[in-house]
């Protein structure tokens, strides 16, 4: 119901943003309160929940065993999935992941994978035969905007919380963990910017997203690298706007990293 109203009051939302007013009193470059909880389920090998304002995402990790890809015989793998649960929004339906869920999963995946945070060589058990595969699944429980950053943060938190399961005779022993953590060599943080006319908002709420002309996400590491870009939505960014996003991303990521 709210969503329809927000579409209709888009002009008012834009006017207020132009005056620098956000509904919860934040500045344009400020995140909502963030709450991370680790180890939310016992059966997962790693898990976390993230609340970003009212946006609520769970992430769970399950290790699997499998054959490596032929072109990388000594590397394990990661697979990221996203479920935009029907309970999370009146506009989400049950069913297989749609294009929005797929895009979200792939952007989160790229940011982590390309940062080389996970040492894929260390996931190799026997070259060409057996490797660990990390199944990382994200469940969106409530969508109040900025699912990208909330999901990326939940994903990273769950990985950080992960411990390898016990393995015997090339099989995972269920219900037994090892205490061996999954080491993360970097902490890549995804930062999404929502463009509303010529303003760039950090951590847009759903109401603000409804007034937006597109978004740009950049994933950054603590040692000065960018590991993923994604422009989405109908809109465009000028070169200097992208540069402003990048500078702000490095700044905000430092704050977010401290929460992990």
């Amino acid at each position: 119901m709210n969503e329809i109203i927000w579409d209709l009051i888009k002009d008012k939302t834009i006017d207020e943003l132009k005056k620098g007013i956000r509904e919860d009193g934040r500045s344009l470059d400020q995140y909502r309160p963030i709450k991370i909880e680790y180890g939310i389920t016992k059966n997962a090998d790693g898990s976390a929940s993230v609340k970003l304002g009212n946006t609520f995402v769970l992430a769970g990790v399950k290790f699997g065993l499998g054959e490596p890809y032929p072109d990388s015989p000594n590397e394990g793998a990661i697979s990221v999935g996203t479920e935009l649960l029907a309970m999370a929004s009146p506009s989400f339906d049950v069913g297989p992941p749609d294009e929005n869920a797929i895009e979200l999963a792939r952007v989160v995946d790229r940011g982590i994978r390309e940062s080389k945070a996970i040492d894929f060589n260390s996931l190799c058990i026997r070259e060409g035969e057996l490797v660990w595969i990390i199944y990382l699944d994200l469940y969106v429980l409530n969508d109040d905007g900025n699912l990208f950053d909330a999901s990326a943060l939940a994903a990273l938190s769950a990985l950080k919380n992960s411990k390898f399961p016990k393995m015997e005779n090339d099989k995972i022993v269920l219900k037994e963990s090892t205490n061996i953590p999954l080491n993360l060599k970097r902490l890549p943080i995804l930062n999404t910017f929502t463009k509303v006319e010529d303003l760039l908002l950090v951590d847009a709420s759903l109401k603000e997203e409804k007034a937006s002309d597109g978004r740009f996400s950049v994933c950054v590491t603590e040692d000065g690298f960018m590991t993923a870009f994604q422009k989405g939505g109908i809109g465009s960014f000028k070169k200097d706007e992208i540069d402003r996003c990048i500078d702000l991303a490095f700044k905000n990521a430092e704050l977010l990293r401290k929460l992990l």
Partner: protein
Amino acid sequence: MNKRPDGRNPEDLRPIKIEVGVIQRADGSAYIEWGQNKIYAAVYGPKECLPKHIGNPYRAVVTYNYRMATFSVPERKNPKPGRREIEISKVSGEALERAIFTEKFPNTEIEIDVEVIDSNAGTRVAALTAAAVALADAGIPMRDLISAVGIGKANGQLVVDLNKEEEDAEDAVDIPFAIMPNTEEIVLLQMDGLLTKEEWKILCEMGIKAAKQVYEIQKQALKSKYFVEEL
């Protein structure tokens, strides 16, 4: 400055050839050869929105279907569209939608179908380049064309239009990039790899320059169909 695996300089594009009006049934179409990449693009619409509930009372809905033929890659591709194709379709459609005056056609759909029949890196930007030409061929009013190009890094060098060998390099960074050439607004931007801010600044300039070269080829292709030679 080193020569690239195929002998190109860092700012050299592979040869690009565009033909307009290649699918007879479509309202607009184009065929592009970009290096080894070969892609057909067709446009249908504005047409009735089916199913009706996907329609928007304020503007046309833009649907973009990027698909790869099973035989277009070294190992046979599953004909079912994968997650990569679905993501590419989404962001490419959004890029084109920025250029189209969708508000002129409420409650209609503009459908763009692209089929990759041979590939060697950079298919999404080649497809987008062809799709923009197909939209113009269909007579859809647009703010500008969309001109796309891959930019990135391979073997320690910043380059435009990476081929597959470069994309597979250990240090490869791949950035699909598209602009509206007259305003230089960026409408498609993705990246994966490890890139510094300084490298990005250089690459963005290289991308704008290369996309404008692509734009000239697009214009030339449209002119050769629509302009009668001077007497």
